[in-house]
């Protein structure tokens, strides 16, 4: 048994300590908001926060998260910045297939937590690890700027 703090709750999981956070969330806990896209930290679909930092949960073993705070998309509606980002996402009609958007929202939220007024270059740097195959980048960028204004 490994004890993980997920979205503010200590949660016991019966998984090998080398199991990536992604598969513990999805297969052990049925928390499916976090998505599998590549398994190699190349696409960002699996992005969660570890102590507020955006990380790729597909390559981060749960052993690395013991005693730390894991935050997932499921907690973003009750997070001030996360909620502002989600509202901006809806306002800009960002999602198409929507599969990558949990990861996009997590990366954007982590960005705005440390940079309240990101420039285009800041946004590109923070978000270019998140692939959207539907090509919603322009709307993502506009939504991040909008969320930044809403939070100001």
């Amino acid at each position, binding site marked *: 048994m490994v004890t993980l703090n997920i979205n503010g709750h200590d949660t016991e999981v019966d998984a090998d300590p080398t199991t990536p956070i992604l598969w513990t969330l999805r297969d052990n806990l049925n928390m499916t908001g*976090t*998505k599998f*896209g590549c398994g*190699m930290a190349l696409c960002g679909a699996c992005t969660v926060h570890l102590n507020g930092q955006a990380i790729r949960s597909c390559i981060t073993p749960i052993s690395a998260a013991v005693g730390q705070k894991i935050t997932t998309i499921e907690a973003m509606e009750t997070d001030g910045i996360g909620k502002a980002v989600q509202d901006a996402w809806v306002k800009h009609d960002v999602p198409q*297939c929507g599969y990558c*958007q949990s990861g996009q929202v997590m990366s954007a939220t982590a960005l705005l937590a440390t940079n309240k007024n990101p420039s285009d270059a800041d946004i590109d740097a923070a978000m270019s*690890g998140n692939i959207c195959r*539907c090509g919603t980048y322009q709307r993502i960028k506009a939504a991040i700027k909008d969320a930044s204004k809403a939070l100001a």
Partner: protein
Amino acid sequence: MRIEWMNAGAGGPDGTAQLNGGSGGISRRGFLKAAAVAGGGLVLGFYVSGGNRFALAQQAKAVYAPNAFLHIGSDDSVTVMVNRLEFGQGIQTALPMLIAEELDADWSKVKGELAPAGDAYKDPLFGIQITGGSGSVAHSFMQYREIGARARAMLVAAAAAQWNVAPDQIKVAKGVIYGPAGQQARFGALADAAMGQPIPEKVTLKDPRDFTLIGKPTPRLDARAKSTGKQRFGIDNHFPGMKVAVVARPPVFGAKVAKFDAAKAKAIKGVIDVFEIPTDRGGSGVAVVAEGYWPAKQAREALAIDWHTDGREKVASDSQFAAYKKLAGQPGTVAKDADISKLASAPKKITAVYEFPYLAHAPMEPLNCVVDLKADSCTVWAGSQFQTVDQAAIARTAGLKVEQVTLNTMMAGGGFGRRAVPTSDYLVEAVNLAKAWNATGKAGPLKVMWSREDDIQGGYYRPAHVHRAEIGLDAKGKIVAWNHTVVGQSILTGTPFEAMMVKNGVDSTMIEGLGEPYDVPFRLSVHNAQANVPVLWWRSVGSTHTAFVMETLIDEAAHVAGQDPVAYRKDLLGKDHPRHLAVLDLAVEKSGYGTKKPPKGHAFGVAVHESFNTVVAYVVEASIEKGKPVLHHVTGAVHCNRAVNPMTVEAQAQGAIVMALGTTLPGAAITFKDGKVQQQNFHQYTVARMSDAPVIAIHIVPSEDAPTGMGEPGLPPLAPAFANALAKLTGKRLRKLPFDLA
């Protein structure tokens, strides 16, 4: 269940039933109502049969299987069954809009649900249940409006009976029915009574001038769920007792397992079983079933497998392109003929050879499905683009009748064609896996998962192509002869679509867009190459390569002629292509092409292309930074006739531009060595990222004509417009994708 039929006969019940294009795909149609929903309410359904333009051989006999399209609940909810897969294109919003418009529903009470496989949900034009050919709105525009209009008429009739007034004294707005003396009733309150009314034989559809929803930019119904992680996709399915399976597939397509050692794999905690199964193209592989994906993946990596690859062609990209180029220099099967006798004596000539690689679709959600196979039934959950074909393939593989197979359509994380496979490759494999699993004495649902590596290496690519063109121009720069040859694998030969779409050995998807729309003497010949690589349509299909060839060559011809490329195109388009001219003019006007100078080191590039009956023009602004092509701005004009949801039209064009841009970037190619795919994941197979993306402005040409498709047509003109801008900067024409400036 009580069902009443209304057979309306040929041509539709009210003269409004002709589908877009008037191609007469429907020979009979009818409506039904069915009192089968818990909690009551009004349920309306629809069926189509006969006239299947692309009917499959095994479906020659029409089957009448009614299914619901619309449910109005006593709680005022309006639920619309969507006869398509939603995978980003916005159809789960657009089709409900059509019903809600004619129904005068309260849009805030409307939701869409994806319909399972069923005869009622077949595409009215194609005759099979499919999401493809950018046909969802185009083919179902009248179908969904008619259902909405009929339900509205029944609600009005119920109100008229209750209030003892004439139906024409009743008004409906936003889900409320109003009588002449101030009577009011919500839809929910009248839904049961409406169910008792006969289905009207004739309904009058709204005058488009009265539309309140169609044509209005409407946010997606699924935007919130998709921004909060609540939207469930196929991969998120979880059932009690469900196990997860992965498959080690042969390294060369169609190869087989010689022997394997699973001792290490079986020792991994959570692994339940390992066994050999048949795989696609007559091959075999090794399946691992485990408690979750992670142990399954680890066990797969721990397998020791010897493969028997003898007798399977081992493709090498270098030699394949060399062979294609050689073929392109020889005449092939003539697909279009013209008098090109002036070629030899033409004073100016262009000779060009183009290369296009294989492309993987790489949707963000890797392929997956859940199969629950029992002795007398099989239930499958999958993000299928091709339910009719897939359901039949599942039944065939399972040894069941089609009606014993339930195929539930799951929201899919992209697809771009990969979820519409004539061989149903991944579903057939999954059912074979379930059969082998059951044969070991076990049972219960299995989720079969593909990794990204499986996806990139698993085949069904946009085929590689070589084009060769010889163009003769007269002294004034007019094209007097164009001799064109294309080499590639046919997508449709050997599939159920061959009979309809492969004519005299020419696959229509390989040549679509070639020689068009310009008035030039164009001879086209085709070589169908054979290769041990499964190929498939990929967003915009043939236009992924034909538009590039046509639009860069026309641009080059304009350059050789010393003329402006927009003026040159317009001259060739003449008066017969008003939609092409409209988008060209609009894109030019909005971009500032010809009126403003691009910044120093930047250049404009133009392209226009029609696919799936929609015409799109782009004017792009590009530069070269540190030897790398950069796309700064795209100004687009779209002619898709009536834009049902302009917000989606814009989004589809934006997305298609980014996807097309991806095909120009270094690494956007699937290549082979010794029969093996050389790319594994996104570090080797490039797709566009935010830092690559341009600023995009999309403009829609206003039109009242029946809508045409929008899922694909935004893609083809982007790469040629970008290439044309780069040619202006370098003086060198790009003839290969992905781009290589060296």
